[in-house]
């Protein structure tokens, strides 16, 4: 505990020291051509095509080779990549994209609206995680000419939802390499992707490395780097050592341990920062199983929240890498954040004890009022620390907590399929629009076993209606207001508590230029990235 606190304090100092230097504009400096950029790849995925799998582990590689219709600019607004402009009809059922001309795939074939049509109908709608939900009411993609794609929806699709979802869920794949080539999931191209991006795939040695090299025919002009090499390193401490030995240039998405990130932050050879990850926000959760009758009582849920000192935890364990969360929509989401003026549960031990008394949970033998099983997700050390902190905090008010640890598959099965938990804690990933992966945590009627959805054994009709209305509201202002109501209701009912907000941390060599300049930089194409001498 002592060590963690010291590490966290060092972090604060480190980030403060680094803020001045790393993000100065280097635009006046002429980019150096050449160089090999070596990236830490912590968790190998089963394939590399981002049209088929939405996760940072795929974007970190596939996002350099394939491109999406739109991306987010430095301010977080949608900006065209393979699309140049877009337009929606007032009823929200037809959205037209104009596509970039003169773009070719790495194998020389031209990129056209037929690729968009095929990817949307066969990949996004049928296979892509979250894509299949987002595009559930997509009925057809019309292609009147090679540079126009018209998306037709059965129900209104808010344009701002689609544009905020597409940077992650809008990668395009080459139709000519997939159509009529059998099962899309087993297509060998998935492990040797072909795209329109600034880097083309060279080789993939499983368990060792992936290599891509500059594509000279890139539509924006050739990239600065010669090659990118992703090295598979599963051990976090080993990755930190390799950063120090100069064998790695970049460890994305909080790939190192908290103490190593803090330590490297003090080293002038590295930049350690959350900048460039604003589009990958997440909140730490406390999930309640309403099938336990004690937890179905809102007073008990409120008492548990009031018993935990969140600011203390953040200050001592996570340092500058986290801040207090105010609900399911994190503060970095400027389009939807409703402010902190929603029901909150600040630390108040006396109130927690009073609420438990009111709920009829009197201390029994040994002062124990209630015993609960807590299942922490194995995704990161912050969750492990947080679960121990919950255990100790709740012990103070007479709630005994037994921690049951599982690996990833076991955790998801126990919580979301078997419902064998009382409390669970993990991450809720926010994907720039609440309709993508946030509201499913609250909307009732989710199929049993669907991870990260409402499996709490509770349905709230009011919340369901707000969620459904917001998902098809085409007026941006009204939509924002609806999501404000959503957060108020969600926090008031305390179906899930989301008291901590985090952004991934980047560790990168100080020689890198033009890095971390967009909210989802680790996932983007790096066409302008370069390495100084």
């Amino acid at each position: 505990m002592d060590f963690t606190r010291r590490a966290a304090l060092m972090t604060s100092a480190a980030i403060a020291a680094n803020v001045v230097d790393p993000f100065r504009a280097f635009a006046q400096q002429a980019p150096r051509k050449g160089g090999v950029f070596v990236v830490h790849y912590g968790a190998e995925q089963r394939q590399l095509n981002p049209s088929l799998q939405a996760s940072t582990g795929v974007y970190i590689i596939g996002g350099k080779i394939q491109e999406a219709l739109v991306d987010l600019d430095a301010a977080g607004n949608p900006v065209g990549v393979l699309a140049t402009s877009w337009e929606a009809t007032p009823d929200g059922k037809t959205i037209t994209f104009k596509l970039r001309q003169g773009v070719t795939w790495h194998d020389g074939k031209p990129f056209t609206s037929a690729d968009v049509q095929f990817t949307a109908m066969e990949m996004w709608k049928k296979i892509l995680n979250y894509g299949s939900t987002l595009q559930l009411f997509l009925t057809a993609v019309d292609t009147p000419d090679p540079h126009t794609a018209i998306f037709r929806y059965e129900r209104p699709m808010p344009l701002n939802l689609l544009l905020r979802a597409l940077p992650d869920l809008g990668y395009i794949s080459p139709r000519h390499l997939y159509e009529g080539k059998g099962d899309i999931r087993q297509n060998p191209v998935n492990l040797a992707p072909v795209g329109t991006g600034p880097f083309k795939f060279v080789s993939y040695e499983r368990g060792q490395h992936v290599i891509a090299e500059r594509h000279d025919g890139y539509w924006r002009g050739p990239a600065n780097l010669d090659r990118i090499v992703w090295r598979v390193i599963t051990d976090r401490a080993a990755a930190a050592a390799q950063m120090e030995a100069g064998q790695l240039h970049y460890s994305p998405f909080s790939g190192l341990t908290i103490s190593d990130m803090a330590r490297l932050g003090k080293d002038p050879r590295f930049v350690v920062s959350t900048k460039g990850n604003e589009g990958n926000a997440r909140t730490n959760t406390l999930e309640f199983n309403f099938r336990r009758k004690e937890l179905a009582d809102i007073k008990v849920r409120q008492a548990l929240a009031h018993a935990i000192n969140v600011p203390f935890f953040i200050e001592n364990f996570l340092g500058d890498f986290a801040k207090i969360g105010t609900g399911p929509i994190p503060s970095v989401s400027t389009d939807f954040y409703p402010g902190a003026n929603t029901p909150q549960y600040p630390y108040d031990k006396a109130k927690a004890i009073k609420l438990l008394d009111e709920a009829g949970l009197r201390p029994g033998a040994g002062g124990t009022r209630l015993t609960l099983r807590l299942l922490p997700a194995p995704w990161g050390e912050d969750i492990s620390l947080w679960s121990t902190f919950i255990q100790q905090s709740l012990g103070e008010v007479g709630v005994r907590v037994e921690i049951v640890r599982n690996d990833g598959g076991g955790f998801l099965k126990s919580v979301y399929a078997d419902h064998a938990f009382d409390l669970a804690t993990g991450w809720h990933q926010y994907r720039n629009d609440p309709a993508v992966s946030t509201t499913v945590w609250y909307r009732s009627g989710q199929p049993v076993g669907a991870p990260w959805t409402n499996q709490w054994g509770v349905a709230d009709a009011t919340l369901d209606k707000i969620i459904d209305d917001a998902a098809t509201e085409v007026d941006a202002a009204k939509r924002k207001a609806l999501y404000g109501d959503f957060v108020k209701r969600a926090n008031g009912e305390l179906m899930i508590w989301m008291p901590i907000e985090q952004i991934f941390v980047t560790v990168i060599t100080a020689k890198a230029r033009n890095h971390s300049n967009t909210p989802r930089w680790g996932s983007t194409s790096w066409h302008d990235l370069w390495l100084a001498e």
Partner: protein
Amino acid sequence: MHILRLAGRRLAASIPTLILILVGVFLLLQLAPGDTVDAMMAQMGGGDARTAEDLRRFYGLDLSVTAQLGNYLWRLIRFDLGFSAIYGKPVAQVIAERLPATILLMTASLSFAFFFGIVFGVIAARGVNRWPDTLISTLGLIFYATPSFWFGLMAIVVFSIYLQWLPAGGLSDITQVKEGIWLVLDTARHLVLPTLTLGLIFLAIYLRIMRASMLEVLTLDFVRTARAKGLDETRVVVRHVLRNALLPMVTLIGLQAGTMLGGSVVVESVFSLPGLGRLAYESVVQRDLNTLLGIIFVSALLVIAVNFVVDLVYARLDPRIKTEG
């Protein structure tokens, strides 16, 4: 011909054991909560119900456990190890890709440990209870008691970060293209630290065994006879004592071949090497049954083979033992 017949008989005798092991592991993994789709969802960090349902059908997980086991054994009879869920290719190919690194690392560290184990064991036994013995035995204990991940990380800190003599991990330098002798030298450089880290633990065991076995053999009658007939000390040790003292070492190598082929998760992870240990670990976490069973199957076969070779070596070292046994 005689040896071949013997090998065939050994293999046939181990088939029931093999089947028991495979069925046991299959059933054990059924007890672990979650399947490969849950693990995949966990790895993707997000997924919806429609995707999950579709994937379960795709991986054949909608079948009953008995049907899955039956399918697996039927495929195995036809020497088909199946398809790996995480790697998207045949298991045999996945294992073949990982074998070279494992065998390279293990042969290197075992040879290192075996050779220096003999040398230090003999030195310690010759100077028993005097300073060389105390020094060697103490060092051996330290090596044995140190966790290999700590040893590995400290070696990286000293030799890679501080002194910058050796690379911190990987099998070769992939930022440059190397060929021929340069590739061999580069790989050798990359293998120094992992070999030492893994070898030091084996070394500790070997030198203890060698020392004990030397001390025992030195007291036997034929040693006295050898000395009595006027042989000098070096000849006594090398020709008479060493040869007999080697028997327990050979047994040990046979036993450790199993551990060795299973790979070392810790050393492979710390030095980011693509070996079988990490592959097995990932298969468990990802609930990739086919790959895990495939690794167990191949390792079991290799252990049987190594033990067979050990028996042959026995016969060479000690003519009293016949391979017919």
